[in-house]
């Protein structure tokens, strides 16, 4: 009897607990956190009194850490009334903790949030970031940053449109996917650096015929093939189509003849043996490392590898943008900003936060960024790179941003696209799926998301 009573009491308690717990996410604080845009923006940090800003960043790698440490020290020296409390985590760790961090009561003031719909998009939708437009006008960020860079950090207030609308973050560094060329290999094959796409493809054939691996890819981690596909897609598909697909905005389609052409071109490269054997089982890092050790003529990869590759190969390597269809034409290629800095809606002093973001993106800050072997996102061509490869990277990035040739990462489109496109391209390159099947798989993901309206 007694035991039964205990069990009954316990289960009643459990039931009560479940019933009393409200819907997840409604945890106490009001959800009307849509911060009203402050009327007057204050731009003189010296007059803001004692402020402590908590910054969550992912600048943990050599160059990134060096520049960010210098910037913070310079800022605190100039404005002793403002203290920066820095919390650094690796990119992966920040991705995992940001969601909880932003919804907690003690949220940071400034965070580095990935541009993607699965991160920044969702934070904007949940009204956890504030639009930076008032400060953009006050500080002239719209003149400092070209349109193509501002677009990758812009969302509509409901996050339905990506690529335009309000400004939600400012990046410090840029990224662009291009081609690393093994110079001595190119010379020994009797080739010139290709000036147009046809010459590029024929150089792949020449390398293969002479027993070399034309292209190095390490696709074990799934995402590297997305960058390879992005480069080929830039050749065959109209840029505004790719932007709609990459931003996850309605109005485009994956299952078009142009996309099919791009996908089947890539498959034909596999057929012709242009890629290293076993690329789906090769890790990303071992792949580019084998390129620096002399395997392969080309490596299609992003500028983020520049410092490491330069260190390993010195003057034996060159960086170029994917050659355009006609020599001298515009190159369209995947690229973006690095992780933008955004202000949270729980920031206690948004003016001070904006002042800090302004400080780390001034032309002077860009010089520090360049000097510490990073790729500054604005005024890139004017900066002095620490080595010749860096200078090529700088001018390549400057060229794409000023000609509006930057295309968004394809996995930004929907919260699930990263996984969908990674697995789909792995299947396609392993010839487990045809280009048509692959594209309709991407279309399904894209359409399911855009139809939510």
């Amino acid at each position, binding site marked *: 009897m007694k035991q039964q009573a205990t069990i009954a009491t316990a289960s009643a308690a459990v039931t009560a607990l479940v019933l009393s717990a409200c819907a997840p996410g409604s945890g106490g604080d009001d959800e009307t956190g849509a911060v009203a845009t402050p009327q007057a923006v204050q731009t003189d940090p010296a007059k803001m009194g004692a402020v402590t800003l908590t910054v969550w960043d992912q600048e943990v790698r050599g160059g990134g850490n060096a520049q960010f440490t210098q910037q913070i020290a310079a800022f605190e020296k100039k404005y002793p009334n403002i203290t920066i409390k820095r919390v650094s985590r690796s990119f992966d760790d920040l991705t995992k903790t940001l*969601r909880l961090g932003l919804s907690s009561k003690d949220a940071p003031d400034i965070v580095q949030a990935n541009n993607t719909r699965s991160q920044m998009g969702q934070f904007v939708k949940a009204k956890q970031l504030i639009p930076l437009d008032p400060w953009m006008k006050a500080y002239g960020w719209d003149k400092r940053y070209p349109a193509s860079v501002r677009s990758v950090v812009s969302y509509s207030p409901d996050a339905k449109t990506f690529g335009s609308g309000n400004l939600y973050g400012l990046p410090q560094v840029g990224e662009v996917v291009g081609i690393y060329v093994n110079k001595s290999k190119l010379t020994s094959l009797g080739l010139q650096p290709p000036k147009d796409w046809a010459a590029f493809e024929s150089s792949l054939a020449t390398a293969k015929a002479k027993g070399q691996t034309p292209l190095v890819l390490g696709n074990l981690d799934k995402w590297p093939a997305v960058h390879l596909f992005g480069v080929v897609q830039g050749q065959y598909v109209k840029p505004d189509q790719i932007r709609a697909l990459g931003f996850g905005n309605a109005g485009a389609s994956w299952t078009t003849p142009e996309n099919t052409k791009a996908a089947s071109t890539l498959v034909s490269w596999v057929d012709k043996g242009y890629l290293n054997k076993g690329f789906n*089982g090769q890790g990303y890092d071992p792949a580019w490392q084998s390129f620096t050790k002399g395997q392969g003529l080309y490596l299609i990869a992003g500028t983020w590898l520049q410092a490491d590759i330069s260190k390993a190969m010195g003057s034996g390597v060159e960086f170029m943008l994917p050659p355009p269809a006609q020599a001298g034409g515009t190159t369209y290629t995947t690229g973006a900003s690095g992780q933008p800095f955004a202000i949270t809606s729980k920031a206690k002093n948004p003016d001070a936060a904006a002042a800090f973001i302004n400080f780390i993106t001034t032309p002077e800050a860009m010089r520090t960024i360049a000097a510490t072997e990073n790729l500054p996102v604005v005024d890139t061509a004017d900066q002095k790179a620490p080595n010749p490869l860096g200078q090529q990277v700088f001018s390549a990035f400057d060229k794409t941003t000023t000609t509006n040739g930057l295309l968004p990462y394809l996995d930004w489109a929907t919260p699930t696209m990263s996984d969908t496109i990674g697995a789909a391209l792995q299947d396609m390159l392993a010839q487990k799926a045809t280009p048509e099947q692959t594209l309709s798989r991407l279309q399904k993901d894209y359409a399911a998301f855009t139809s939510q309206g």
Partner: protein
Amino acid sequence: MSVTSRARRSAPPGEPRTIGWLYAAPALLVYGAFLLYPLIRAAQISLYDWDGLTVGTWAGLDNYRQVAQDDGLRSAFGHALVLMVFFAGVPLVLGLALAAVLNRAKVRGLAFFRTVVFLPQVIAMVVVAVAWRRIYAPDGSLNDLLSAVGLGDLGRAWLGDYALALPAVGLIGTWFETGLVTVLMLAGMGRVDRQLYEAARLDGAGPVREFFAITLPAVRGEISVALTLTVIAALKTFDLVYVTTKGGPGNETSVPSYEVYHQAFEVGAVGLACAIGVTLTVVIFAISFVITRLVERGDA
């Protein structure tokens, strides 16, 4: 003499029960706060459509329906079952054989060999995974070894091969768990009365007969423990898949625990992730229950 004092004196130790609860209370509180409450909360969230940021909307059993119907998620559970063979089945057979040999042969320096087979258990799974990723790489040691013995044609990118990626991941588990099973079995066999073996030998039993007639029944309890541990390890595999393949090639090696992480932290489908987690918990409960019932039956 009052009624109450007589009752107290005649009651068995631990009575009245309320006092017993008092003793257990600290442990129960900790258990409730850190295990039961999160479990109940996860079960609750699994009934919502929630992105982890905004207010969730009631979804009923939709998330569970998706777990049952989505091909990718269903095959993730299928892959976990395959991994069970590699994590639990093969190590059990290998461990029993190794332990029987080590136990019977009275090997000199038994402690040394025991340590060697147990060594993988000491290494963190992430380190194991990083090391094996190098071994399986197209230019890794496994392919080098194959070409050294003239089998270079068999070489391939193991973790990128659609047919072999899952077994390749599973073999890492076999390598990892065999030591644990062996040591458990050795402990069990050490308890067996030597006289039983002598009697069997007098009756003319060979080593194989001895093993099946005496050793195997004697370590029934250890087998149950080993199976429970390794099967749970197989079902909750996450780090191994995360580091070696990220679920690839395609989705050939994705497993439920990886999907929980992926849905919750990468996609932002926290409700669905909780539903997968709860389903996985139920599956683990059911399988452990079956193992205990089957292996320990008649042991009492």
